[in-house]
């Protein structure tokens, strides 16, 4: 039941170059909280439901975690619907770790702080409107626990 989220988070961690800045482009600041200060957070953003399902990120960043809160900024994004997903690579091995039964052992989260049931949040749960100018998503990593 966890296979889909593992695939989703392991694949496509290589950043695709961000879209060229345009006059009416938007910027997204991802504010992360609830972090254990170690390792790094791997963040991906998606520009469509199809890309989200296929794990084809529009952009990705790796943010080293030094404190309980961190920020990542994505620029030059065309306005539209987006979703963010991330995992906290606590041990810094570059992988989304799971236990022997395939259950994630590292925190993961989505935009809108959406949480799936025994799997990733759906596009409809995680999608948000990105407008021209400044946009913010505040995400509690491992939220609720």
């Amino acid at each position, binding site marked *: *039941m966890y296979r889909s989220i593992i695939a989703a988070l392991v694949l496509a961690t290589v950043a695709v170059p961000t879209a060229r800045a345009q006059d009416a482009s938007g910027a997204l600041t991802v504010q992360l909280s609830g972090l254990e200060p170690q390792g790094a957070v791997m963040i991906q953003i998606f520009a469509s439901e199809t890309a989200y399902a296929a794990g084809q990120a529009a952009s990705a960043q790796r943010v080293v975690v030094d404190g309980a809160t961190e920020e990542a900024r994505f620029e030059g994004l065309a306005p539209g619907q987006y979703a963010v997903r991330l995992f906290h690579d606590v*041990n810094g091995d570059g992988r989304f*770790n799971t*236990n*022997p*039964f395939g*259950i*994630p*052992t590292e925190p*993961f989260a989505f935009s809108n702080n959406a*949480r*799936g*049931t*025994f799997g990733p949040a759906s596009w409809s*749960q995680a999608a948000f409107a990105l407008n021209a100018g400044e946009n913010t998503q505040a995400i509690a990593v491992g939220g*609720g*626990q």
Partner: protein
Amino acid sequence: MIARRELLAGAAAAGALAAAPAAFASESPWGLGVENAPVDGYAPAAMRRVHGRAPRGLEGSLYRNGPGWFRYGASSTGHWFDGDGFIQRFAIADGQARHSGKFADTLKRRIEQQRQEIVFPGFGTRGVRGAPVQSPDDINAANTSVMMAGGELWALWEGGSPTRMNPETLETIGIRPFREDLAAMPFTAHPKVEPNGRIWNIGAYGQRVIIWRLAANGVLEDAQVIDVGSRSYLHDWAVTERHLIIPLQPWVHDRMTAPMVDGYTWHGDQPFRIVVLDKNDYSNRRTYELPAMFYFHTGDAWEDSDGTIRFDLCASPNAHFVTEQARTMLQQDGGETPSAELALAVLHPDGRAELQRSGIHGEFPQTDRRRQGLARDLVVIANDREVSTLGLMNWRTGASDSYRFGAGQMVQEHLFVPKPGASGERESWLVGVTLNERERATEVHVFDAASISDGSVVTWRSRYAAPLGFHGTWRGA
């Protein structure tokens, strides 16, 4: 159960229900036992001695765990097994008993209390659409048993980690994985503790089983995953000095559906398989077969010098209790399932297996834990249904002894507690709990294992009826 229903009807006629919580009108025949406990639990309070005198030398605490919260108004769990873990302590000292209780502070409980509704899916509960579940420990109810390890009290579930608690205050410390890469692995509510303190346990997921080996202080020594070849419902197991025994009943999880219990199918035409593993080499296995039967609980196991393995279990003809009654009991009378029969499975060195039936019925089998994995005679069971009886079987002599509490007493698990300075099995007390529906009160009883038909040595009664529990542990003073 008829007696219980009549009792309730009588009480209603007398207007006694007027003062009862509204939810009691659910008319569950299990009535008081499946009502919500107070949200903050019970502060330590003296119990009233209603019979006998406390035996000299009995000092310590009986800790018990079981589901203690079932509903928020009309929002109800779908199965007895999904209630929030409620830990009760019966502390006996200086000839007196004190009762206290507190909920395990789980993520599930925190969120549901905040939202005032049942949110999470469970064994027999569907949960709300889109319930936020990222790990089995997000739905860990910590509601099935308790054990002491490393000075902590662990509230055990079946599908996830132990929840660590302070044994004095019953405050929850939290979940801490045995090892980071083993977070959220299942750890059943039936660990087996060798006489030297070493702890064995298993956890099942599909047809794979993790075998845990912990030091006496609860620190992980080893964990290995094996494939047992069947997705059988695996609630309890058994351990001898040299072997691990994993019974695989023909109640099999063969469909992914919600709630989980609906994904199991009873295959009455298939055998009850028993996999026996060498403690030192899990690849060294033998498999035995018995006719189809259902079980929740084993007693304990031992092996003879010729290699014959014996373990007691409570056997039912099918899975009706878990699929039907344990869900409907929360709402209405779901009919009556006969109690399981105590039996002894005998696994011969030549590969044959047989089942020796005792003729006495009940559940929650308990043995003298000083003899874990070793030859012994006695096993005690509680019959909480037809006859409200505590039964003690002697496998060596074939004789049984019993005490009948009478109608309106729901008899729960009783534990062997060694008498100070004594080593014999019969030189033990049996300490356990009943829910006295007539008195609307929880009682703790102490029997002498040598003569349980004489009745309890001492009985204390609380001022209230606490929810039924499943399993417990005794911690000597």
